[in-house]
């Protein structure tokens, strides 16, 4: 039997959604029999592969690198899942959107006002986007699993449904926060 090809991506989030994924505990061992992880921070593949069946994305899109990655991932993926509130609607990552010129405001505070030696806004790094975006503002998303983080049981439910070829039914199950 060919294993289902699954990728997981961390964008701008706290890793809590990936931790909740790991909180599936012993089910991970079952999962490993059914799926092959082809790209993930947990494995050492450095380039997003072709022909991915399911890509699970944690975090909002916050910088230019992430923008590029999510677009590549979308093109190479059949079903894309937004995992957790940051990916779904921006959540805490998007709090900077509330500030006027939020990208500059957060950088100034951290690297000019709160630095003691050589204060400067790092310039040789990937620039932040003006705003942090939920995934669906950038690419088409097939399934949303809200939550901060979504409970492990909900992740298991969605994966089980998708692996069985069914559409997960989120009414009464999905919950923000």
């Amino acid at each position, binding site marked *: 039997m060919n294993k289902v090809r699954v990728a997981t991506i961390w964008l701008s989030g706290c890793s809590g959604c990936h931790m909740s994924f790991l909180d599936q505990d012993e089910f991970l061992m079952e999962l490993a029999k059914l799926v092959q992880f082809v790209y993930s921070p947990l494995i050492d593949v450095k380039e997003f592969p072709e022909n991915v069946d399911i890509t699970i994305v944690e975090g909002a899109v916050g910088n230019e690198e992430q923008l590029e990655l999510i677009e590549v991932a979308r093109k190479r993926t059949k079903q894309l899942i*937004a995992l957790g*509130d940051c990916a*779904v*609607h*921006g*959540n*805490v990552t*998007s*709090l900077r*959107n*509330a500030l006027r010129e939020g990208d500059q405001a957060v950088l100034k505070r951290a690297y000019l006002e709160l630095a003691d030696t050589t204060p400067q806004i790092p310039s040789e790094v990937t620039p932040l986007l003006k705003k942090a975006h*939920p995934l*669906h*503002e950038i690419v088409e*998303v097939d399934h*949303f*699993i*809200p939550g*901060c983080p979504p409970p492990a049981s909900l992740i298991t439910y969605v994966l089980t449904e998708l692996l069985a070829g069914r559409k997960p039914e*989120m*009414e*009464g*199950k*999905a*919950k*923000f*926060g």
Partner: protein
Amino acid sequence: MKSVRLTIDGRAVEVPDGTTILDAAMANGIKIPTLCHLEGVKDYGGCRLCLVEIKGSPKVFPACTTPVGQGMEVTTNSDRLKEYRKMALQLLLSERAHICSVCVANGACELQSLASELGVDQLIFERDWPELSVDLTHAYLVIDRNRCILCTRCIRVCDEIEGVHTLDLMLRGKETQVVIDLNENWKNATSCTGCRKCAKVCPVGAIYVKGEALSSTKDKEVAKFITERRRSAFE
């Protein structure tokens, strides 16, 4: 009193004339989602979650402010209504900073649990971020206008139950906000009795008692309870 016969979701029911569709449904165990409705105070028809269909009309009607009529055929849960309700929630959720994860009402919020119940699992609109004020001046009552959904439950309990009308609305459209007296800090509000009813009935994390778990301090039955006690006292 004259009674009226109608059907709700195909079920024949009989209620006194003048009853709202919402009350008629609830009296017969049919659940219609609501947010601004609060038993014990006048209905406002603001949140549009209780929309229902009435046979013969292409329009939809808020069940909380529409009285029953003889022979009415009411539908409370069609696909169209589901979509409309989800849309109403979408609009509410994107209007202000409703970040459930870091909200004091996380887990005790009617907006959050309704979104879950109705299957709202994403935000389709870009969030607006109004810069509204948080008033932390009162000894124990807090208002965070960034989390307000303008359901006016607080205003109605303050006016109709406590009878002091400390709270009201200011400005219009998306600028609208709940103010205290003539837009005072809460600690300077001379009309406020500090009764906490506003905090108990607020469905979200906009008005609450500082330091207390909202799951234990929220109590929207308080308005109904007081109204019923008053009625029985006069009888």
